């Protein structure tokens, strides 16, 4: 249980909190002791610091502390109050220093103490800390009466300026006179302006006489913040004790005096970290073990599945091996049958259609050239694309949007009846051409009817073309597209 050692002008007293109440005790309990002094030798000073950072700043402040308070090891700086900017928060230009110059008295008290010292705080430092409460005026007198003394402290812009301890020698009126004297001193030293209006005074006491006397001196008495009143019943020093127990900034004891306490903190932290590490390790291990078990289960399951697949594969391979040929030969054979033989057009069928298209017994075919259009070439013999009976290798069919079987290219020549007039020849040829283009898939590439219609026409007295001199043959050439491959059913085909 935590205990407080309260060092006052009338001696050292131990306090301990039990059931929410601060009680005086003879000796501290087990555990560390927080020391709070309320002595006249508490010194406050403010220094100006260049804009230094880090170690330079702390070294500068250390040097200032050593030079200003060379005789005591109990010295420290207070936290900067209400920084206005980030830079002022990191490296404020004004810094309050605090020292407790009653070195021997404090040493004696600490030497007699058979407990670890958590730290030493002064009433001035703690009051300065409390005075930074935002609900309070920034310029404020703090008055804290004790049984034989009274602490008067003034904060300007929430920075402690002066801290005095006066002896209570004549009651409330005398004490208020000390407050007024302090105010006059601050006015004389130009810390405060004269006639600067009513100054705010916070009286940390339930003494009605004192409050009334202060109110009579053109000073405004303000109420303590509610949070402070909650911490204490009637004595405001308990509010200081509560604050000290939180180990706020402004601790004065050198490290030498606090080794036991810090070591206990280190031990607590180390054991805590050890426990956390052990818990984390156990958690990670447990999670890992679960993961390993899951992996092992998955490995076993995968191996079992792979074994089944292998068995099935062996069975399938065996079934395939029972066939006398490889699947490649099977595929190739079926492919050749489908793409090269069944997909080929029938000359028989196409000649029948052609004979229907000619449909004139007076016409005779003088030449007919029929070929599978693979590789695709021009059907017209006059074109330089190549002869139908080319020896070129049989190449794959040209790529089309709809896959089709092999087409055919046909050219033929008709012997026309002798003695036909030009118009009759034209009519005859146009009739053949019209019947040809009605054949599905046929693309006419050479039409003699069109050739004649755009050729020169000669007649009259200049030159007469006799009927005997007119051409006796007419030639057509065209291609017929193959059937779509999905129309070819290999299984129904005749082997």
């Amino acid at each position: 249980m935590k205990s407080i050692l309260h060092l006052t002008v009338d001696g050292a007293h131990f306090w301990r909190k039990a059931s929410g109440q601060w009680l005086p005790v003879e000796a501290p309990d087990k555990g560390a002791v927080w020391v709070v002094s309320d002595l006249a030798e508490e010194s406050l000073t403010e220094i100006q610091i260049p804009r230094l950072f880090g170690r330079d700043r702390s070294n500068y402040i250390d040097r200032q502390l050593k030079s200003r308070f060379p005789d005591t090891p109990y010295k420290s700086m207070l936290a900067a109050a209400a920084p206005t900017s980030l830079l002022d928060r990191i490296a404020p230009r004004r810094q309050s220093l605090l020292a407790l110059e009653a070195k021997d008295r404090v040493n004696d008290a600490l030497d007699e103490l058979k407990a670890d010292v958590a730290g030493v705080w002064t009433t001035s430092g703690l009051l300065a800390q409390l005075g930074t409460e935002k609900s309070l005026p920034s310029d404020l007198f703090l008055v804290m009466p004790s049984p034989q003394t009274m602490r008067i402290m003034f904060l300007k812009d929430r920075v402690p300026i002066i801290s005095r301890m006066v002896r209570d020698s004549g009651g409330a009126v005398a004490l208020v006179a000390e407050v007024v004297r302090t105010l006059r001193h601050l006015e004389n030293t130009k810390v405060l302006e004269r006639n600067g209006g009513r100054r705010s005074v916070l009286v940390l006491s339930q003494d009605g006489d004192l409050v009334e006397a202060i109110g009579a001196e053109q000073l405004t008495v303000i109420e303590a913040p509610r949070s402070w009143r909650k911490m204490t019943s009637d004595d405001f020093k308990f509010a200081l004790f509560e604050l000290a127990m939180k180990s706020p900034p402004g601790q004065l004891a050198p490290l030498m005096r606090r080794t036991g306490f810090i070591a206990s903190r280190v031990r607590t932290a180390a054991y805590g970290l050890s426990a956390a590490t052990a818990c984390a390790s156990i958690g990670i291990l447990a999670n890992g073990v679960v993961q390993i078990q899951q992996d092992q289960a998955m490995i076993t399951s995968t191996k079992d599945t792979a074994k089944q697949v292998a068995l099935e594969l062996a069975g399938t391979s065996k079934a395939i091996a029972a066939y006398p040929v490889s699947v490649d030969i099977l595929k190739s054979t079926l492919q050749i049958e489908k793409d090269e033989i069944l997909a080929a057009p029938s000359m028989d069928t196409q000649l029948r259609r052609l004979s229907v298209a000619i449909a004139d017994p007076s016409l005779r075919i003088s030449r007919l050239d029929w070929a599978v259009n693979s590789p695709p070439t021009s059907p017209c013999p006059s074109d330089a694309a190549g002869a139908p009976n080319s020896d070129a290798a049989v190449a794959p069919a040209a790529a089309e949007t709809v896959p089709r079987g092999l087409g055919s290219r046909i050219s033929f020549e008709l012997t026309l009846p002798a003695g036909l007039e030009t118009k009759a020849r034209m009519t005859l040829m146009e009739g053949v051409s019209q019947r040809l283009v009605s054949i599905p898939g046929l693309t006419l590439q050479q039409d003699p009817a069109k050739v004649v219609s755009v050729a020169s026409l000669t007649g009259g007295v200049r030159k007469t073309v006799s009927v005997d001199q007119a051409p006796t043959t007419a030639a057509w050439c065209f291609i017929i597209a193959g059937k779509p491959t999905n129309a070819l059913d290999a299984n129904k085909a005749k082997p």
Partner: protein
Amino acid sequence: MSDLTSILRQSKTALAVLGGTALLGLASYFALAAFLQKDQTELASVQSEKAASETDLTAKQAELAMFKSNFSRFEALQQKGLVGVAKRDDWVEDLVRAHQRAKLPLTLGYDLLAPRAVVAANAAPNAGVASGATMAPVELHELDVSLDSIHEVELVQFLNRYQDEVRGRYRLQSCVLSSPRNSGLSANCRLYFFNQPLTPASAARTP
């Protein structure tokens, strides 16, 4: 002894416990990580093997299904002479026999050229020349047939009869009918016989 040393000395047991716990935790972590890594590697390997086997199985099942659905057709084509050793002599003899039976004028001329390897249109990736030593390429045998004094209908009937009788699979590639006379036309036709050898050795005659 400095203050810091004093603090450390007073806390040495706790610090030792912390160090020990941390070391133990780290050792456990790394050991566990090693086990997990080993397991993951093994699992990945087993899964990879399984995936490969499944892929093989799918391919084999597809092959088997193909055999089941097409082998009777394949056997029929084999019977018909599309598969195996090309019976070139038979093709020619059958041609002559068909010509004799058709009682056509004795003007038949023929020329069966040496076979050459071809790649079928839409051929399977492993089929044909691309398969190299594992599978013989498809052979193409060109048979040029010439006839004189024949009418169109006779020619068609003759070719249809030949197709029915010959033990081989061919397609009529081209026909040129010319020189019309009272006795008939001259016909020059080219037939493409296709053949799938069963062994690469039989395809070694590729020119």
